[in-house]
Structures are given as structure tokens and as C-alpha cells.
């Protein structure tokens, strides 16, 4: 069994009511230490008020080759954008 500490991905919520955002990664022996290390590395200058860590191996990611099948379908659905519909000025802001 490898003696290398597992890799964790770190997500931080900034001060301003934003979502948690991926900021980087680190190695740690367990979740508790991962949070402590993330505190030390990624919030030394008040960058955050909340930390999530998740082991990198548990993240599933789409692959660049799937770009077509995944995102192409949305190209043909222009009606999903509000600007698709002409609404008379007389009815006011909508």
C-alpha cells in the first residue's frame, strides 16, 4: 500500500456569501488534517469563512472528448434565452 498521503481538493467560501470555490489541493492523512492544512495554506489572509475538502479520487470529471455530446445540444436551443422572445414595449419590463 502506498505510503503517500492522499490528495484532497480544497473548496473555500469567501467572505461575501458566495459559493464554495475550488482553490487548490493538498496532501493530508485524513479529512480533519486536510481542513487544518487548508486553513494554514489557503486562508492565511482572510480568504475564507468556510472550508470543504474532498478526496481527489472521489471526484468524477467529464472528459474533454465528450465536449460535443455534452454541450452541443444547448447550442440549438436558443429559445432558452429570454432575448429569443420579442415582447412589446407597451407591456413594460418583463
Amino acid at each position, binding site marked *: 500500500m502506498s*505510503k*503517500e*498521503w492522499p*490528495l484532497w481538493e480544497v473548496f473555500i467560501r469567501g467572505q461575501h456569501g458566495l459559493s464554495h470555490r475550488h482553490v*487548490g*489541493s*493538498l*496532501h*493530508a*492523512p*485524513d479529512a480533519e*488534517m486536510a481542513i487544518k492544512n487548508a486553513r*494554514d*495554506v489557503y486562508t*492565511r*489572509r482572510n480568504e475564507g469563512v468556510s472550508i470543504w475538502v474532498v478526496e481527489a479520487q472521489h471526484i468524477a*470529471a467529464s*472528459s*474533454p472528448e465528450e465536449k460535443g455530446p455534452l454541450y452541443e445540444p444547448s447550442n440549438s436551443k436558443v429559445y432558452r434565452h429570454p432575448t429569443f422572445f420579442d415582447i412589446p414595449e407597451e407591456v413594460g419590463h418583463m
Partner: protein
Amino acid sequence: MYAQMITAEASDEDPKLLEEFQARIDRDEKIEPKDWMPMAYRKTLIRQIGQHAHSEVVGQLPEGNWITRAPTLERKAILLAKVQDEAGHGLYLYSAAETLGVSRDELVELLHEGKMKYSSIFNYPTLNWADIGAVGWLVDGAAIVNQVALQRTSYGPYSRAMIRICKEESFHARQGYHAIMQMAFGTPAQKAMAQDAVNRLWFPAIMMFGPSDSESVHSEQSMTWKIKVRSNDDLRQQFVDQTVPQIEYLGLDLPDPGIKWNEERGHYDYSDPDWSEFFNVIKGKGPCNVDRLNDRTNAWEDGAWVRDGLLAHGRKKAAARTAAE
């Protein structure tokens, strides 16, 4: 995995993929970890980012040397914070390298086996407190010039690491200049120490940008792939131009008699450093090469039981949690 990469042949790569890759680079698109990339691009990045990470970590040693002997509690706290930042920089960069399929432990082992390098500047000693000021100001100052340029590098994780690092670096340069200012405007003995530090560190600092591009082996391909975005000489010139007025402000003598404003070029002329010294230090014959590598290896080996213990504890806790579910 890294060993496999080293031996992999690049020649059998699909020319169409190579062409598309170059087109993405030319459009200034960032390359992300799962994207297709030429083997040589990956290898060059692993070498460069790994070397960069090692430099951040080894760079803690000459400064750590003075934490216990800082002249005041405030200076000690500042230096401690600065050195802690450098540990973080090492981490950001190892993480960026890891997205390329090499592990951090592998990189650390390659460093300890002498198969990877770190910046040659850290093979010079920090003899006294003035050196600590000069390191922050000149060494971090030179690193900043390089790293600001690298924010635009083509590999996404490397670029993001650089952006994060640059946010923290200006504190490093400023605390160093501030420490030197106090000495340069202090007693004659303090001023002499500041002068001595600048004299000794000037040439090693301008060597940090590497040899002239005409002699640099890796430059051309790296520029085409936008791993590097500005030439060594170009970056060095910028550093000289911004640093000369800072030296003059301190009332110190310029460390190189060849420094002269060149009206025509709109830049300072300066003397070429002694490149034979640079190559000597790279080859392991600098004043501190042996010490630095020993310190790193000892820290790694002495810490092994702590790492192993924490990992065993982590696994035990995870197993207990699974059993309870």
C-alpha cells in the same frame, strides 16, 4: 509513471493533434489537465514546475536560518510569515505538477537523488541579517518579475498557481527592502553590512533568470508552447531597470561598475555575470549545495515516522467509520 514519460517517444504523435494543440496555444486558450498534450510539453512542464516547487521549498532554508536570530520580535514574526508563505508556494506548485501525472513524493525523491534541480540562488549562504533583507528584496524581487510573466503561461494549473503566488510575493519583496532601508539609513556599520549584502547577492540574483536565450537549451520550444512567455534577457533587463533606482535611493553604491543608463536603449546597461560560476553552482559546486540537499533529505527522512503514523491513524479512523455504518 514519470519514468515512463521520460522514455516515451514523441515521434509517433499524431501530426493533426499536434497542429490542433498549437492552434489552441496560439489562440491563448489554457491547456487543462485532461486535455490532449504532446508528451514533450508534459515533460517540460513537469521539469519546470517541479523545479520551481523545489526552489520554493529549498528557498526556505537560507531564510529559516535566521528566524531564531532575527533582531526584533516583529522582524521574527514577519520572517516566519514569509517563510511560511514559501512552503505554501511549494505546495501550490507540487499540486500543479501532480495534475500532469507525477506524484509529489516522486518529485521529492528525484530532488533528493540529485535528478532534479532547484534555483541556484539558494546555494549561496545567508551570512548575516542584512542578507535576509537583501534576499527578500533582490531574490524575491527577481522571482516576482519571472512569476508575473508566468501568470500568462499556457498550462492552466501552472498559471493559476502563479496568480496565487504573485498575490503573496509583494509582501516578501517589501519586507526585505524595508529591512535593508533601516540598515542603509542606520549606523555606518549597518550601512556597510547592507552594502556588502547587495554586493554579494547582485550577480547571483541576476543569474536567476538563466543564461542568455541564445545559449538556453529549452527556450525556443517553450516560447512556442507559451510555457515561457518572455525571454530570459528581457526579464533580466526589467529587473535591472526596476532595481537600480531602489539601490540609489538607499544611498548605496551600485554593485556593478558596468551599470549605466543607456539613453538610446531606454534601459540600464549592466555587466554580464560570470556564467562559469552559474554552471558550477548548477553542477553542485556552489557554497551550500551539499548542505541544502542534506537538510532536505534529513527533514524528509526524520519526518517519515510522523507521516506514516498519521496515515495509519487516518486509515484506522476511516475503517472504524465504515464498520460503524
